[in-house]
């Protein structure tokens, strides 16, 4: 951590420099492979794990010197734990918390530009340095009418650099996720769209208000109030939620009952969004959840919202019907609809991929097949990791000529894996609900 903090200090300027940074890392990663094979010759027992660890650390060091979208991609990779070999996970988890700060005069300037007033004129108090870093901006604490507020300010130029940053991340994403160029492009357009939305703070305020109003009936949840008159393209002002992040809260040894209560609130929140609103807070990383002092679960940051198209929704969620795995024809149709397999596939490929996807579905759908599911069960998560490790290293997948799975699945999958791993962190037992049409 110490080392990475230092790295945060210097941000390479300009695309050329950033590209140079990446090339340097590329060379290093290459070097790690050479080292690995050299070591392997002398010590055949050496596992891939160690190599992954070396790579993760180099790539992380490189990514930590960037901010904005590159950091966001690092975050995403750290989220998609199912896709990452275990050694990468911890390194990338670091990326979820740190980014270099904006100078206070620039903060003042941003305020003057949009409100014609300095923070001191608008608020009774305003912290001079950021109290928290977000991937696309930073958070200051302000006081207005005696009330604590959180003010998020976007880095200048983040929106314009999204596309070029994504291009830079490409080769690394390919190597890390072990997928082909084609497959990556298929998903990257979706990622770009979401990231661009995330830089639109006006949209974020609108969505935050909508979703928090729609979810206000769910017990044990709480949402900050958003202040539109103090928000704009680059600034969002909302209530300050005081409390602990999940990790800190777990250190206070909460009872099973409390953990279940928080976990259930989380589950109900996602259930309502996915099945009723058909749009979902698709950024379930631990920093976006705060367990408030009153014992409710506070939810912040609606920057990343995935709207789920109706036809995708039907296909995707019919997969969790238990009897479906047995019904071959219906299942085949869904596989085609969701682009898991296509007419171009050979018979061998069809057979192979169907088998893999079936295994995945029954595994991922497992919590839905029981009334109460214990997310504390680590063997369940190990099964998921084992399967995704196996899949990502499988020759058939690597050779595959096309991307598999609808691009809409990307964020929906991410959301569910995020949700599952949060519930795992909470060690919670959940009443897993299903929408009526699936019962």
């Amino acid at each position, binding site marked *: 951590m110490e080392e990475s903090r230092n790295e945060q200090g210097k*941000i390479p*300027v300009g695309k050329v420099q950033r590209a140079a940074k990446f090339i340097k890392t590329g060379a290093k990663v290459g070097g790690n492979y050479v080292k690995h094979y050299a070591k392997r010759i002398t010590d055949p027992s050496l596992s891939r794990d160690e190599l992954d660890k070396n790579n993760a650390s180099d790539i992380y060091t490189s990514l930590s010197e960037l901010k904005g979208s590159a950091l966001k991609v690092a975050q995403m990779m750290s989220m998609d734990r199912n896709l990452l070999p275990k050694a990468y996970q911890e390194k990338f988890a670091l990326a979820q918390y740190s980014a270099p700060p*904006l*100078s*206070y*005069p*620039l903060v*003042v*300037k941003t305020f*003057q*530009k949009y409100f014609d007033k*300095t923070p*001191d004129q608008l608020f009774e108090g305003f912290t001079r340095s950021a109290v928290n870093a977000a991937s696309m901006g930073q958070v200051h604490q302000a006081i207005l009418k005696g009330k604590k507020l959180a003010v998020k300010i976007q880095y*200048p*130029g983040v929106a*314009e650099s999204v596309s070029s940053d994504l291009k830079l991340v490409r080769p690394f994403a390919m190597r890390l996720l072990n997928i082909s160029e084609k497959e990556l492009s298929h998903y990257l357009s979706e990622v770009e769209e979401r990231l661009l939305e995330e830089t639109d703070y006006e949209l974020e305020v609108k969505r935050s208000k909508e979703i928090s109003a729609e979810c206000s009936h769910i017990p044990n949840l709480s949402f900050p109030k958003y202040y539109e008159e103090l928000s704009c393209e680059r600034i969002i002002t909302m209530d300050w939620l005081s409390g602990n992040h999940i990790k800190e809260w777990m250190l206070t040894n909460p009872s099973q009952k409390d953990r279940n209560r928080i976990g259930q609130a989380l589950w109900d929140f996602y259930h309502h969004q996915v099945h009723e609103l058909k749009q979902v807070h698709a950024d379930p990383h631990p920093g976006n959840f705060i367990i408030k002092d009153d014992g409710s679960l506070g939810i912040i940051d609606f920057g990343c919202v995935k709207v789920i198209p109706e036809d995708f929704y039907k296909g995707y969620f019919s997969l969790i019907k238990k009897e479906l795995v047995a019904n071959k024809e219906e299942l085949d149709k869904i596989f085609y609809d969701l682009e898991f397999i296509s007419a171009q596939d050979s018979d061998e490929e069809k057979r192979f991929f169907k088998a893999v996807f079936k295994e995945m579905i029954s595994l991922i759908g497992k919590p839905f097949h029981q009334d109460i599911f214990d997310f504390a069960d680590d063997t369940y998560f190990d099964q998921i990791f084992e399967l995704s490790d196996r899949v990502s290293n499988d020759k058939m997948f690597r050779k595959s000529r096309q991307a598999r799975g609808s691009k809409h699945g990307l964020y929906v999958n991410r959301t569910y894996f995020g949700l599952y791993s949060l519930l795992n962190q909470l060690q919670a037992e959940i009443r897993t609900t299903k929408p009526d049409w699936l019962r």
Partner: protein
Amino acid sequence: MEKTTAKKTAKIDKRAKIIDQFKRYVLEHGKVPATVFKFTQELKLKEVDFYAFFSGFSGVKRAVWQDIFEVTLAILRSQEVYKEYSSREKLLAFFYTWIEELNKNRSYLLVLYGEQQLPQLSLPRELEGFRKDFKEYVKEIIEEGEETEEIAKRPYISEKYDEALWLQVLFVLRFWIKDQSAGFEKTDEAIEKSVNLAFDIMGKSALDTFVDFAKFLYQAK
């Protein structure tokens, strides 16, 4: 007494009026007026009155630069928080405010200093007054920084800091002139990064320790 102040304000008004009308002329015609005679005639002013303040149009242009600088400083000094800033933050605040003032005059400045007109190495004579004012201002910042040890005192080099920061002003100016981004956000980034770099260089660094060590080795022989 009353009479003299009245006369004085009239004088300032006239000067301000000439500057104002000059800017307006440049904006409307896309170029500097052909002669002072023609310009003053359109203004219904005596030619002599013009020469009482300026020796020519380059004098007016010079005044525009200095006015922008004065306004920038006035805005900075009116901000409570400015006094509490570190040297680094003061310079950042200066640039951000200055660029805002430039934005207000962008069309005028682009006519005169658009990409083609701004020479790469030398700079137009009319920036000379602004340069002098800026260097005076920035010297204060540097001294303050040296006191708080934000900036390292180095023999010979320290005397050149003000000149180096002036070069940074020109860098930011050139960057801003070419900036095509919405709301000139790229310029904001350029300021943030270049000022941070400048202060990191001026601050105490490994190089100082190295020089100190080298000196020790040399003397210990």
